[in-house]
């Protein structure tokens, strides 16, 4: 075995020193004042500096080590209900004011507000990180982790032909100023390690994947086991390699915990964001208080969970995050509300204004979104099925915004007959709508877990967790080959 290790390891003392504030307060005052002077009734500066690192392995070799520093200032101006947005990598006041002038070119008017003096506050750090990217990139130990996971996957079977590993870390510092007197700062540390295993036997090929991540530093290595990562990626690949064609038609489906929650996230969660509710584009826009799900279903979007991937201290509009009960015993209890959504709908903000980076205006977005655990037993769920599917692992899919019509791929599935799991199946898809599937969830188990994902929407790709315990959907259309 050939293992490529560093030839001549370069050891900087510290990758970067952070300077706070990132924009001089007097300059921020001048720019906000300029926004007010051209007639904006709300002006905001979002300053971001992020350090990123991605280490990639291909089987037992380092494929690449990449890194960079993102920095920019986002300027948001609101004129009545109209939002204008610009950004720059430069910090000069003249450039920031030029952007404001170009943004306001068609909306110039007399000032309608006065800036409230900045009142600096910094949120309490609820998600501490120790091995941050700026303190040490820890490339060697991340490479060692990925190569150990590769070795474990290969040891599982000689049909594991290849693995792909990735360890991504990001340290994001943000600072916000606005015309309502807000001045705040926050730091976020993200880490994620993933291994994909490919199994090949003749012309047949299949893959499996395992990923760990969180809102913390590389101290995550103390909580994760490369052998488990490799074993699990290989196990999924091997199951899929031997899978048969999946029967199709309407049938009950038991959906596995963790990433199985992607269906709720995509097909229901997005419909609860005021981004679509305010436009009446969501089928749930007028359903507050109504029974929209089976009474077995309670769902939450929680930004406060310690060190979870989708957690935050404050949102990207500077508001403290919170735990938001979306659905309680089947009834709709809250939307996800950002500043603009609150003005448009009248609902209280929920600390859900999020954006990928300074390049995006914030929008109402999910954080850690999940169906709360119930008390059903896994064997009981499987035992109640005459003919159906157990979707142990879910993959990607597509969703129609507004209506929640979806199709999602099952990446690890089993045919169930006479109350027993029979054999693995491949190429299954689940097809339904979010509102319909919510009413068909009849049993929710106890084995709750969360899984990491990147959610793409109007304000870019943001880290979100999806989650649930294993649950049973009584009736759903399964696409297959059989």
């Amino acid at each position, binding site marked *: 075995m050939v293992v490529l290790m560093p030839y001549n*390891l370069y050891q900087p003392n510290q990758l970067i020193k952070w300077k706070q504030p990132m924009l001089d307060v007097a300059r921020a005052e001048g720019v906000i004042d300029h926004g007010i002077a051209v007639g904006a009734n709300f002006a905001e500066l979002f300053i971001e500096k992020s350090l990123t690192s991605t280490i990639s392995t291909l089987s037992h070799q380092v494929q690449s080590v990449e890194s960079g520093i993102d920095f920019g200032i986002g300027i948001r101006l609101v004129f009545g209900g109209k939002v*204008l947005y610009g950004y*720059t990598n430069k910090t000069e006041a003249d450039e920031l004011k030029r*952007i404001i002038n*170009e943004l306001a070119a068609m909306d110039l008017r007399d000032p309608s507000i006065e800036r409230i003096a900045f009142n600096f506050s910094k949120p309490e750090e609820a998600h501490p990180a120790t091995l941050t990217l700026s303190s040490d990139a820890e490339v060697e130990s991340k490479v060692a982790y990925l190569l150990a996971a590769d070795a474990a996957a290969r040891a599982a079977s000689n049909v594991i032909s290849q693995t792909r590993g990735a360890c991504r870390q990001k340290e994001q510092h943000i600072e916000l100023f606005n015309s309502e007197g807000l001045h705040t700062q926050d730091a976020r540390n993200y880490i994620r390690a993933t291994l994909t295993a490919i199994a090949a036997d003749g012309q047949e090929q299949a893959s499996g994947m395992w990923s760990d991540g969180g809102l913390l530093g590389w101290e995550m290595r103390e909580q994760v086991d490369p052998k488990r990562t490799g074993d699990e990626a290989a196990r999924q690949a091997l199951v899929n390699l031997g899978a048969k064609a999946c029967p199709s038609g309407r049938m009950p489906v038991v959906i596995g915990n963790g990433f199985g929650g992607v269906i709720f996230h995509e097909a229901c969660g997005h419909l609860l964001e005021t981004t679509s509710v305010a436009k009446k584009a969501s089928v749930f826009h007028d359903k507050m208080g109504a029974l929209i799900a089976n009474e077995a279903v309670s769902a939450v979007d929680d930004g406060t969970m310690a060190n979870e991937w989708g957690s935050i201290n404050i949102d990207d509009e500077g508001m403290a995050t919170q735990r938001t009960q979306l659905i309680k015993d089947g009834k709709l209890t809250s939307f996800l509300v950002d500043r603009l959504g609150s003005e448009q709908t009248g609902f209280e903000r929920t600390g859900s204004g999020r954006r990928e980076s300074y390049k995006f205006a914030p929008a109402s977005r999910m954080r850690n979104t999940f169906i709360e655990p119930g008390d059903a037993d896994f064997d009981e769920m499987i035992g109640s099925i005459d003919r159906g599917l157990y979707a142990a692992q879910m993959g990607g899919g597509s969703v129609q915004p507004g209506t929640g019509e979806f199709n999602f791929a099952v990446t690890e599935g089993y045919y169930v007959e006479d109350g027993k799991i029979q054999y693995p199946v491949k190429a299954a898809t689940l097809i339904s709508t979010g509102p319909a599937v919510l009413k068909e969830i009849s049993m929710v188990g106890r084995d709750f877990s969360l899984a990491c994902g990147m959610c793409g929407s109007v304000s870019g790709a943001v880290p979100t967790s999806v989650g649930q315990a294993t649950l049973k959907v009584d009736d759903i259309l399964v696409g297959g080959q059989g």
Partner: protein
Amino acid sequence: MALEDQASQILEQVRAQGAQGDLIVDQGEALSLKAKEGALEEHKVTSSQVFGLRVIKDQRVGIAYSEASDAASLQALVDQALLNASYAAAEPFETIVPNGFSLETDDRLLSPEDPASVADKIALALQIEASLASKPEVKNVPITVCKICVLNVGCSQPRV
């Protein structure tokens, strides 16, 4: 500090570590307008300045970028590129050719003066959308985009 001085300083730091390097500085300005149903759906004004560094040390290539131009970030840019290179496979045919000359494009030809104001461009975006929507065979114009970008790219290499 002037941009050229920053570029020189970065390459000096690269050389001080016994490496070769070249640096691309990408500067630009852009205006993006999206018109829908007679109104602007997006009006975005942006400008950018990004440093992209490639280093070669002991036949190993490392790259890194920085959108920040403060001294600490530019030092970190050099550190990152060298760190990344130390994990790369040797590529004996990858070289940086020293030069002692500069190349310039004809900006009058490739990037002529733009006399149109932002208001003119907004009016144009709305006019294009309205004119398309008025055609009987057109049911709707899902999106009309008007994007104007000006880019300046400079490349700095060590001189011999």
